[in-house]
């Protein structure tokens, strides 16, 4: 009986996440029909996520063998959705637990510290929970200590990352209505910082005429399908028909095979996105509802496209220059002995565009160009550096894309390697977090002397 509850019910991530949704719905006193449909949809979302992982893994395998045969080096396609879906088998329960308690820690920290941010980008919460689970479990943690410290790390990041970029976000929006809650924050911070340094007297991007024709790339599925098809095509050409038709495609023409495999990858991403959308449908509103009750004057931290309307041209410029930096990195990475990170249109579009808006806010056109390029280099080098830290997951041919995952993963991986005992590791992490919050609160006081009545 205990075994059934602990292992089969709570040990199955889909059911665990379903239970969170169920409690959330009951807490909100939702109608019984909504409770049933919401809970079922959440569980189904998780099952769909796993199905998408199955689709992606086959196509990734073939990509890796083609790439390896063509260039004799590991080629990696960074994609958060893919790596998180692949990680659910081995790390699903811990991911779900860290995600739930991390949200609670976020609410608690928003209540007691001056950082009143509620991190509403649910899929990023989940991805970060997964990254933390993978790194700490690879480093030998497990059970209660893992979930305890993992949740504290996640909840802290959910307020610290928005806090890091809010001074710049204010510059963009001119208000405190919302800030950005997205784990590409370090890239945005660097972009804004670079903008400040290079952008003296540079005019705003918004005075330029920029063609609108790149708008179709905002459609994720189209962008992924296009990138993957081109990518698989190029790698297939280098790999040659002999190898592919004899080893991989069972005689099917190598270019036809490459085309279909590329689109299979895109289809997998599409399925995973649908699953994530479904599994978050109840959890995020419940989180927001509870946060609104507990944290007076909470500031919502939103997904990065929230700032796109404030500088439409910077969005396009940021995407282009971030992508250019990604292409340059592709040739630099093997020179320094790292795996090749294939630049994806999606990560460069979303984070590059946001970096462009931040860079423009501090340094006009020059800021947008150099800032988003800095972001492009970051999201090429960080994923490559992260691979060894991911343990068994590092061999799947995909990795986390955005900058914060790389920085947090490398830091945690380094610290967990230094201290083998969980107790010491937890103490060190807590000490670091207390220090960061302390410094953050002091800086905050200096900048906003009038906000003394916090909590």
């Amino acid at each position, binding site marked *: 009986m205990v075994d059934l509850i602990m292992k089969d019910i709570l040990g199955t991530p889909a059911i665990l996440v379903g239970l969170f949704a169920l409690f959330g719905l009951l807490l909100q006193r939702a109608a019984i029909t909504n409770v049933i449909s919401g809970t079922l949809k959440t569980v189904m979302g998780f099952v769909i996520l796993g199905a998408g992982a199955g689709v992606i893994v086959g196509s990734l395998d073939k990509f890796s063998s083609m790439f390896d045969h063509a260039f004799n080096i590991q080629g990696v396609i960074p994609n958060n959705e893919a790596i998180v879906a692949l990680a659910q088998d081995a790390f699903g329960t811990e991911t779900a637990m860290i995600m739930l308690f991390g949200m609670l820690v976020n609410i608690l920290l928003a209540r007691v510290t001056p950082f009143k941010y509620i991190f*509403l*980008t*649910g*899929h*990023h919460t989940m991805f970060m929970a997964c990254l933390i689970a993978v790194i700490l479990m690879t480093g030998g943690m497990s059970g209660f200590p893992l979930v305890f410290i993992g949740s504290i790390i996640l909840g802290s990041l959910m307020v610290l990352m928005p806090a890091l970029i809010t001074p710049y976000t204010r510059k963009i929006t001119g208000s405190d*209505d*919302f800030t950005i809650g*997205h784990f590409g924050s370090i890239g945005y911070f660097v972009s804004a910082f670079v903008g400040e340094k290079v952008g003296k007297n540079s005019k705003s991007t918004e005075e330029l005429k920029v063609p*609108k024709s790149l*708008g*179709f790339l*905002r*459609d*994720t*599925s*189209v962008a992924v399908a296009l990138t993957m098809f081109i990518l698989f095509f190029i790698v297939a050409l280098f790999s040659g028909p002999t190898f592919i038709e004899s080893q991989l495609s069972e005689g099917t023409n190598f270019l036809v095979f490459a085309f279909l495999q590329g689109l299979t990858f895109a289809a997998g991403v*599409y399925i995973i*996105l*649908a699953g*994530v*959308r479904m599994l*978050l449908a109840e959890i*995020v*509103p419940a989180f*927001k509802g509870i946060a609104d009750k507990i944290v007076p004057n909470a500031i*919502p931290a*939103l*997904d*990065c*496209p*929230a700032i*796109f*309307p*404030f500088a*439409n041209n910077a969005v396009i410029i940021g995407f282009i220059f971030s992508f250019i930096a990604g292409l340059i990195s592709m040739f630099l990475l093997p020179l320094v002995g790292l795996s090749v990170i294939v630049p994806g249109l999606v990560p460069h*579009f*979303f984070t590059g565009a946001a970096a462009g808006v931040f860079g423009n806010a501090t340094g006009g056109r020059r800021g947008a160009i150099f800032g988003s390029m800095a972001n492009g280099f970051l999201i090429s080098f960080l994923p490559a550096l992260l691979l060894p830290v991911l343990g068994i997951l590092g061999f799947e041919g995909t990795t986390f894309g955005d900058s914060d995952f790389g920085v947090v993963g490398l830091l945690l991986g380094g610290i967990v390697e230094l201290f083998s005992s969980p107790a010491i590791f937890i103490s060190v992490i807590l000490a670091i977090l207390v220090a960061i919050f302390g410094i953050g609160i002091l800086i905050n006081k200096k900048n906003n002397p009038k906000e003394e009545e916090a909590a």
Partner: protein
Amino acid sequence: MKKILVVCGNGLGTSFIVEMNVKAILKELGLEAEVSHTDLTTSKSEYADFYLGAADLLENLEDGKRNVIKLTNIMDKKELRKAIETNLKEV
């Protein structure tokens, strides 16, 4: 029951927040509608009475048949409120 579909590129973050905002505004106005969110690709094959989202993105959805509500700043609740009032009151 009218259906409002909120659309963004990924169908994960932005459209989800706007969906919650739309629901809150409908409640204030005492109007009833079914609200959900999705990505651009899926929205093309999903029927709704109103498609709502950022102006530059929704240009891809305009075909003369769909009711498209374009917003210049998707996070601006005042603009959203006005858009909902003008579109849903006519019905």
